[in-house]
């Protein structure tokens, strides 16, 4: 066991964690799996490719990143307002399919604008590196871990200490009743979608510290699902252990067992965890056996 494995797993976990957070936040308010998220991530990546030129100064980079973050939040709002809000009261499956339609729409946009383009987002500080425990550690290896930790902790605190946490669960379980109890379900939904989409933008910058932006991001984003489920779809506390578990399993499999299984590992972990704990590591039961 050498240090590089830990580092790789942590990096991967940080990306997965932020991706999963995006799913969890939407799920908590609506019990809807947000399949549009991969589209948001992809589009954010492609825009970053276009608007951050090869020779961008750090200032330009950060400004663009901020603008993209804001754009992401706006896109989330738009998706909610235009597509999901009118679906209130329909079955969860239909709502998921709506997010799927949104994914197709986002993909159409990305195809019209970028076709199948791929490339690297030029990150500032990509030359900075240290030798640590016999491993080459770059600034860009450490940065995603720190950013992810800050983001996850920040959101966890926000939900903990704001009234919205409980309200979100109520809205998710029974929107009609929640509305009749005076909760503005639209506000809560809009907030969740905006945050989730912004998280998608964060995630794309995190993955870009390690690899390129391409259509393949869609598949990577989907792995965030598995993490969200392993942790428990409506729980923030299960998310960190889940991300670590899935990432570690993937890294270890690729390094020591079989590289080609890398893609399937998160899903196998998921299967195993769910068979033991059907609602994930820290999720709560959503259906009660009661007649």
């Amino acid at each position, binding site marked *: 066991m050498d240090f590089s494995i830990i580092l790789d797993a942590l990096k991967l976990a940080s990306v997965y964690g932020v991706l999963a957070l995006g799913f969890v936040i939407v799920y908590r308010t609506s019990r809807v*799996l947000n399949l549009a998220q991969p589209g948001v991530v992809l589009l954010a990546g492609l825009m970053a490719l276009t608007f951050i030129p090869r020779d961008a100064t750090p200032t330009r980079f950060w400004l663009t990143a901020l603008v993209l973050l804001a754009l992401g939040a706006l896109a989330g709002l738009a998706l909610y307002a235009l597509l999901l809000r009118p679906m209130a009261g329909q079955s969860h499956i239909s709502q998921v399919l709506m997010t799927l339609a949104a994914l*197709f729409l986002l993909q159409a946009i990305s195809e*019209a604008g970028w076709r199948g383009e791929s490339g690297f987002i030029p990150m500032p500080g990509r030359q900075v590196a240290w030798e640590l425990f016999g491993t080459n550690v770059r600034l860009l290896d450490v940065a995603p871990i720190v950013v992810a930790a800050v983001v996850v902790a920040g959101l966890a605190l926000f939900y903990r200490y704001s009234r919205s946490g409980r309200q979100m669960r109520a809205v998710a379980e029974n929107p009609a009743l929640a509305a009749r109890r005076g909760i503005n379900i639209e506000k809560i939904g809009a907030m969740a979608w905006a945050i989730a989409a912004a998280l998608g933008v964060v995630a794309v910058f995190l993955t870009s510290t390690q690899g390129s932006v391409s259509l393949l991001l869609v598949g990577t984003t989907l792995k965030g699902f598995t993490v969200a489920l392993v942790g428990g779809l409506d729980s923030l506390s299960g998310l960190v252990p889940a991300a670590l578990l899935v990432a570690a399993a993937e890294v270890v499999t690729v390094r020591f067992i079989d590289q*080609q299984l890398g*893609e399937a590992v998160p899903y196998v972990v998921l299967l195993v965890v*769910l068979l033991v704990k059907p609602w994930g590591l820290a999720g709560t039961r959503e259906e009660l*056996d009661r007649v």
Partner: protein
Amino acid sequence: MQSPPVLRGRSRRWRRSPYLRTDYRRELALFPYSGPRLAVIAVTVLLVAAYPFLADAYWLGVINLAVIAAIGALGLQIVTGMAGQLSLGHAAFLAVGGFFAAGLYLHLGLPLWIAGPAAMLAGATVGAIAGLPALRIRGFYLGITTLAVQYVIIAIGLKYQGYLQTSFGTSGSLSLPIPDLGLFTLTSTMDWYYFLVVLTGVVILAVTNLKRSALGRSLLAVRQRELAAEALGVNVARVKITAFALSGALGGLAGALSAYYYRGVGIEDFDLLLSVEYLAMIIVGGLGSILGAVLGAVFVIATPLLVGQLIAVLGLEGVLSQHLRAIELAVFALTMIGFLLFEPDGLAGVWQRLKTYVTRWPFKYTAMSTQAKR
């Protein structure tokens, strides 16, 4: 307060009502012998039989693909539309069917008419295994476990292709011959069309029968209230596994057919997008509806191509050719959105609405108490 008994069993109307049946066998018959219904069926059969003479080879091919997809979509409809168990990994069953059929040919030289049923069996087995988590896991969690099954199947498929590549030296994609069904071969697109249409007809009939039988009812019961169904004597575990197995069987059949139709399979074809497309088929068609699954399949397969043709007809190709696929995708997404927002019951719902509109005309609303269903 004594009023005459409700008019039951005898109609005082001057015209015989097509809705009045006099014994249960007639009510339970697959095609109640009502004039309008028979007429609709006759017209449909005629249109289907005449289609190859009305359409060019291209559109015939498109319909072939759609019909194969319809078989797969019916499978998904059973498990997701009827039993309510979200399945995000339907492509896995298609992969199993396709590879099983191709493998049987490659290793044992078995033809389609054996490989087809065998692929169904294989699909059913994998389906039943994939359904096992359903005994413990529900909702989206279950959906994602089915997705997990898909990834596992793809990993296995890749290994298998790798094995073929090293031991057979093929480039890893399996090629298949022109299918020989014993009595005839499927050489032309038209051969395929009639074969597929008849086969699909049989499948539709079988699924319709299943839906109207005890199994169909228990599927819907389990989807609604598992506990109550169980307390009524329905073996919920068995019903769920059966649903998954049936879904796997039809998926497997569709996979085997498409393998032979394309004369080859590659595991790369069975990605998540394919599963998602199948889901789109049943939602656009209408969840739980058999007609819906078929219409949805045609819709999902044909719409993007139609858009392409439309653009060509409008002479916009030069301007838009670079963005053809993007436009097709956008149109597809927008139609899906349109359905979800304005016609949640899908194409089948539109059809139903149309029927009600015709029978109810000129009235706009029906009072609850007099609303006749069926």
